[in-house]
């Protein structure tokens, strides 16, 4: 589904990603862990198409297409979803209107008819129940004045509405207490199927107690330096990132 080969990316001439290789197949959950500044969020941003980053080498294939050649909205149309670390507050635009526009633009991209009001409402009710989000929250301006937990729940709700092939969760647990993490993780788990995949980007192991990965990758200094089964996350939690740092000295 997603095939990253030798991906290099930089921001303002500063090299962040220095040759990432990663394969994700349908039905899989991958976790990317790593210390601060290792390039985790950069990877998520580059995949979603954030324009601040420049890809200097490598390829990314997603669902048979050259992902790097697509605009952010085309990537979403192809089924890629990024749950933001810091969801943006948009005054004057209700979540409902926003998500309706998004659903119908994605449908248009896929050559499908837009949903009428009744069908949209039905879909929304169903997904609201699934991710446990309240109508009153969705009538308000998008993320404006939302708590950290509400913002993240709204991200999962949007994910449920758009039904992506690949969901990238960028530090979704940051700033959340354990109850909020559980609610968000439950939402994500309900959306998992054999046809879609999840890439969890996180600093801490705790989110992985709830969203259990098939593979864990350790990102350090712009490269994946270690991959393994879910137990690798526990090892990292126990030993801290220093053991990785000692094992893989920073190369000039």
């Amino acid at each position: 589904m997603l095939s990253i080969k030798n991906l290099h990316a930089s921001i303002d001439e500063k090299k962040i990603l220095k040759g990432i290789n990663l394969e994700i197949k349908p039905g899989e959950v991958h976790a990317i862990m790593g210390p601060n500044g290792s390039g985790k969020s950069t990877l998520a941003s580059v995949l979603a198409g954030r324009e601040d980053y420049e890809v200097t080498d490598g390829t990314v294939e997603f669902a048979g297409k050259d992902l790097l050649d697509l605009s952010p909205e085309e990537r979403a149309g192809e089924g890629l979803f990024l749950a933001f670390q810091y969801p943006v507050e948009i005054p004057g635009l209700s979540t409902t209107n926003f998500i309706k526009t998004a659903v119908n633009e994605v449908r248009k991209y896929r050559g499908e008819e837009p949903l009428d009001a009744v069908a949209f409402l039905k879909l929304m009710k169903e997904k609201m129940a699934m991710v446990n989000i309240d109508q009153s929250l969705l009538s308000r301006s998008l993320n404006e004045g939302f708590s950290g937990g509400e913002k993240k729940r709204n991200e999962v709700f949007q994910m449920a509405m758009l039904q992506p092939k690949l969901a990238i969760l960028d530090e979704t647990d940051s700033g959340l207490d354990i109850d909020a993490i559980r609610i968000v993780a439950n939402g994500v788990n309900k959306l998992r199927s054999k046809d879609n995949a999840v890439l969890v980007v996180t600093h801490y192991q705790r989110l992985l107690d709830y969203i259990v990965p098939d593979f864990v990758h350790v990102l350090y200094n712009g490269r994946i330096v270690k991959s393994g089964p879910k137990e690798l996350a526990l090892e990292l939690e126990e030993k801290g990132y220093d053991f990785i740092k000692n094992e893989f000295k920073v190369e000039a």
Partner: protein
Amino acid sequence: MNNLEYIKERYNQLPSVNDLNGLGVIRQKAFEALNKMGIPTTRHEEWKYTRIGSFFNKEYQYQANQSAVSANELSAVRLPGYEQANEMVYINGRYSPELSVIRSKGLTIQPLEEAAKNEYKDIVSKHLGHSSNYLKDGIMALSTAFVQDGVFVHVKKGQIIEHPIYIYNITDARQANVLAQPRTLVYVGENAQVKFVETFSTLGTQESFTNRVIEIVVEKDAITEYYKIQTDASHASQVATTHIQQIGKSYTHTVTVSLNAGLVRNNLNIVLDEQYCEAHLYGIYLQQGQSHIDNHTVVDHAKPHCESNELYKGMLDDQSTGVFNGKIFVRQDAQKTNAYQSNKNILLNEGASVNTKPQLEIFADDVKCSHGCTIGRLDEESLFYLRSRGISENTARSLLLHGFAVDILEQIKLAPIREYVDKLISERLEFDLA
């Protein structure tokens, strides 16, 4: 003959110039002030960024005859909900009783010239021209010099005027360039409630210049809403002055919507002249092409315990230019004042610009005041957020800009007018309201 000389000649031809019992004195004074000050240039501090001199260097017809503006033409400029509304129609600056429809009880409309002599003469002599205390320039004087063409609106004490008063300022520029000076004095009696919506429309392709002055006096326990919607053609320019004097503990709410026209200068003065007054001022401007919008506001806290709340927002595209100048005075007497002011701008094009100047002058020591302004571009992170959900870049821009306008739109309490303005803004932003 240029416009100004022509206007002066017209003034001298007026028959009632020596009529000192009515409006003669105030007119004479204004005419002298006009001669002394002339039309303001950019050397005048309050006109630094707005040039109107060129409008007075060419030929205009002054208050041209009320040429045949047909019922059909009037229908084209009517606002939604007009079937129930009161409608005041000005053609080329003169009030047209024939085209106007007054439905509500307790609402009296008559020529200022008459009101200056009859039972209303005390109100007229006390309040007419009060705006000149705040706007000391030739363009204000020019309006007052011809004040005898104006209209007096009286809202009876205790009367709740349920349906709004729509004011249509129509200039007929089909034959020639037209200068129009519609003038109104409104008196809102004790405990009365009234809502105004004012629009400007130019017929034809010649130029029009409108020098509009409306003065509104608000008595104790009265509530006044006033909406100004500017959507005129690019060859139509105007100076539009709204002067509100709250002489009793009262509530006013104004929204100024500027979506089109060539050059627009709005003066909005609110004088809080009694304790416990409340005033809310909102504005939204969307400019494009070569258009110019200038919002000058003054809130004068003259008495204690008053509150004012001001928010103006603008989006400027192409080569358009904007000015915001917001003054708040808190007089020495006006302790316990709450005064807030904010101006936010989004520039959509490198060629667009805005000059914004918030000004607070505080002479009291126990007050809460804040002011601020921002000028920026559309937020890139917001744009990316929307695009990452599959929304195209153009649609994402429309959604964000419409969202920027929403808190001002929500201040239009008249539902049909709010929907109408939302439609205009949405069309401009290519935003799909459905």
